């Protein structure tokens, strides 16, 4: 017999996880599609009863988003301009049904190379909050996502939320996604950018992350350096800026195409922030 738990508190959830491994379930938007035509024969921990894990709060360390925060929650939240990209992404995920059910943290835990949340959260320098009965830890997103469908989360750990450092007032965010249709579409290439613009229309700090172009989304640190101190019209993206990308050929597009369009998408996203 398999168990189904729907704890009401994080403590209860962690205690169960310390005893038996369970598949965490929230919006179900990745859980069920992976089980089409198959019986569900595993222990499931349904997190949706833990009310304290849903919501967005301003805390001393930054902006906290609980693990059950949905795309719709993000879309409607009153957030600083730097979150614009994340909010744009929330509107392009699946259809409204996905946005209402799907959680940002679920998107991270699923660790698809095409996860729309990741480039934006990387550009926001989000950290992932993990808890277990052994204690809690916080990982940078780059450390949390290890590869295609692989994360650093231990079996007894639960992702409880995200912590995003409070962006400066002159930081703006943008998201560009290329897909083959308007709704319900998986990104062929996407980029999330958060840029601080100085009064002289030059870029201060900038964070640029790209998804669907490697096993996991990555930040383009060389390009970020290149952009700092530049005006929009001075930005030139060169091959070496993209050297860490390793796109593959798949049904959605060829690898060369991804490399070809990523520069254009980045430029458009940076321009949006200006």
């Amino acid at each position, binding site marked *: 017999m398999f168990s*189904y738990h729907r704890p009401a508190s994080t403590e209860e959830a962690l205690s169960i996880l310390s005893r038996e491994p369970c598949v965490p379930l929230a919006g*179900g*938007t990745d859980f069920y599609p992976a089980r089409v*035509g198959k019986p569900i024969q595993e222990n499931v921990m*349904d997190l949706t009863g833990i009310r304290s894990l849903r919501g967005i709060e301003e805390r001393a360390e930054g902006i906290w988003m609980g693990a059950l925060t949905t795309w719709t929650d993000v879309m409607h939240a009153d957030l600083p301009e730097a979150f614009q990209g994340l909010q744009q992404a929330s509107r392009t995920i699946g259809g409204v*049904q996905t946005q209402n*059910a799907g959680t940002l943290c679920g998107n991270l835990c699923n660790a698809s190379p095409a996860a729309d949340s990741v480039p934006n959260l990387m550009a926001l320098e989000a950290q992932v909050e993990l808890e277990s009965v052994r204690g809690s830890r916080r990982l940078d997103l780059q450390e949390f996502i290890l590869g295609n469908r692989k994360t650093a989360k231990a079996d007894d750990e639960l992702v409880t939320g995200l912590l995003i450092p409070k962006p400066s007032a002159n930081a703006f965010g943008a998201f560009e996604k290329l897909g083959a249709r308007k709704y319900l579409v*998986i990104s062929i290439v996407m980029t999330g950018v958060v840029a601080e613009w100085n009064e002289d229309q030059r870029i201060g700090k900038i964070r640029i992350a790209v998804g669907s172009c490697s096993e996991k989304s990555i930040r383009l640190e060389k390009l970020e350096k290149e952009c700092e101190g530049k005006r929009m019209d001075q930005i030139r993206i060169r091959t070496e800026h993209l050297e860490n990308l390793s796109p593959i050929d798949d049904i959605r597009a060829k690898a060369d195409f991804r490399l070809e369009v990523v520069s254009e998408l980045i430029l458009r996203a940076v321009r949006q922030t200006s």
Partner: protein
Amino acid sequence: MEVETASKTIRFKLNGQACSIASNPVTRTSDVLREELGLTGTKVGCDAGDCGACTILIDGEQRFACLTAAGQLEGCDVQTVEGLAKDGKLSPLQQAFHRYGAAQCGICTPGMLMAAQSLLNVKPSPSREEVEDALGGVLCRCTGYSKIVAAVLEASGTETQELPADADSGFGSRTRKVDGEPKLLGTEIYGADTAPDDSLWMRVVRSPHPRATFVLPSPEKIIEENPGLMRILTWQDVPGNNGFGIYPHIKDQPVLAKDQVRYRGEAVAALIGDRKSIEAVTDDDLGIEWVPQDAIESYESALEGKISPVQEIHEDNLLARGFLKKGDAESVYEQSLIKAQGSWETSYVEHAYIEPEAGYAVKRGQRLELFVSTQTPYMDRDEVAQVLGIGPDQVRIIPSAVGGGFGGKLDCSVQPLLAVAAWILEKPIRCTFTRPESLASSTKRHPAKMKASASCDKDGSLTSLSFEGDFNTGAYASWGPTVADRVPIHCSGPYFVPNILAKTRALLTNGPPSGAFRGFGVPQSAIAHEALMDSLAEQTGIDQLEFRLKNALRKGQKTGSGQLLENSVGQAECLEALQSRWQEWRKASEEFNNHSEIIKRGVGIGCCWYGCGNTSMSNPSTMRVGINSEGTITLYNGAMDIGQGANTIMIQICAEALGLPASSFQFIMGDTDLTADAGKTSASRQAFVSGRASQLAGEHLRTQIIHLAEAEEDANLRLDGRTLWVQDKNGEHSILLSDLLPRTNGDVLVGEGTFDPPTTKLDENGQGSPYATYGFGAHIAEVEVDLKLGTTRVLRLAAAHDVGKTVNPTQVEGQIQGGVAQGLGMALMEEYVQGVTENLHDYLIPTVGDMPDIEILLIEDPEPLGPFGAKGIGEHALIPTAPAILGGIRQATGVSIHRIPATPDRVLQAIQQKGMQA
């Protein structure tokens, strides 16, 4: 073996009522609603959040029921489609859907309604954009979304389209769908919605390899270990012929493969038992020993002969050839100064009906009864009979409502397997394909590899056209020969061409069987002839529309097959109707381009013609209409309604012929015990062929009434309860229906009509009269291409079609809008790759946000053989769309796309290659 999670009591509010169930809490809410609570209004199309058919409201928010754990409903307020209507009266939103014809097959309708309702609850007057955002998560394959969006806007009072408030029900009126209400209420019964309570479930085990030999170990042990698994059927269990196929002489696809499989998805065994057990026993548990073989997956390898042939009896992998020769195209082309040529390749395209294949079978005495989603009950009856080795009269097909077909439900899917299982086990057996299974196993549009050339003289008159096309017909014949035959006749387009040479081949490969899909190969070949027209027009300096108009087929001319066109040839009128828009749109796009560097616009044009009915073949329809002693008129309609609206128009036509209102009719659809054979719902033949039969049936009944009343021919009829009043210039005669002796089905008067469109055989040069009539059409499309990303958006499209006479404008528009959506998908995004795109997030079809504004212009050049002048539209609607879009891309970017679909990477590559050449 403990296979599942313990039940839990879940309490929630369901459509306003308190509800408490004991259920496995990880079960999908869609399953709980359908299987445990009997609320089958919520549909399942994918179980993966890709189609939205299962959309319900949870605490007012739209959610995919298939992705929601039942346990999460605890304490929630759940609303399903069944909760929309109050006291059986349609809600304002449902009424708007009904008025606009927003439900065609109806399978996406519950999801659409719920998604729209969630928006209207919080935003009573939304903008069009907000409506699209709200509906973005629900796929519709029939309507092209136009009427759905219009209905939501109308319900919200934001926009009202011009529609008669209360349409009457005669021929030519916007009669509402006679089967519309159940589709809107969620009470319509589709293939997966019902089965006898004691039914066992069937799960089909399929090949994971495109080609392999295999050994299936003896099943005893696994059956012993799994008490809920009753039986594993193999090829040895098939009592009759272990083969099926469209053609009476080609039954090449095994019901269950014996020792080798020829495509990924081929059926090898069927597990029968309770649902949980057959799902829990995995394919791996069966221990099938697979030995994968080199597969033929390209045209080249099919032709090279290096790999052993797909089917032993076709050594050269050549299933069928088609040929047409008129004049001497080769030498005329050689001598011509103005010529164009090119090559094009298209992909496998999936029908993607939102209702997966489903049904149940039950043995009743020495008869087999099959309830199934089908386009062709009579062919199913004969197919099942030969598989069981019994007579066709021992089989009864009762069609379910069909949640989309588009040609894909002409071939057998669940039918032979369910029949064998029910026959052998003597128990009712049900089955619903999963979406990946549906995608892997079902037929597709033929991929085509085409070469074509054409020439014209200085003043732009076409002088020759040559076409060579290889069509990948997959592992089994299906409709391959039909495609090979149809394409040569149509590949010169709706133009007068004095010299034509056309050769086609249907090649067998280890791919899914290519079958019938809206147009039987003609949409593929239209891409070639329309690109040639653009090129020739450009070379002669004649406008592309004018060039087509100059060459348009007209009455008194002969087609490529030498058929003299005498009536109903509206091609020129279609083009003329588009002239002003064409000029205006082209000008607008040029102006736009003057100010835009990266985004470029272009307007393209595509034309079509298409023969209604089967090619050079008898394809009769018989329709019956009866009145019973109570005064109820029943149309016994054998013409399957697959969403296109046959149930409605057959009644409209019959009513017109009979002289009594359509509202006094009821109907029975497709039941092989109760209706006569009206042939397949395919080849754009039902409105034309069955429509004519329906007219004849109505006239036959009328004649009997007139005779009985001894009244004049032009008498008026009136039905008042059990009394039929017949009024002529001599006065009013009454017939008391209850005085008449009941005949079949309790009817006291029965009319019958049969129509078989006149055609002739084609000779060795493809010459003859293959169709009794043709439909014509043209589309223009304005597109926008992003030169840096390769993305294409269609901004607006105008479609002109000669439909002979419009039986029902709402339905004709619906056919055109839906055809445009499928044509757009084929042009820009649809590409099935076996083993890769076996779900609806990797196989993409257009969403509501991908559709342009569509303007429709109906041309009526009556067809004397059709019912009151009408002819078909189903397939015509799709054919010109892709050529028009590709022409638009060409005009916007200057590049021609030769590999379809024109995905962003292909478009960008073409743009860059051109840049390098420049």
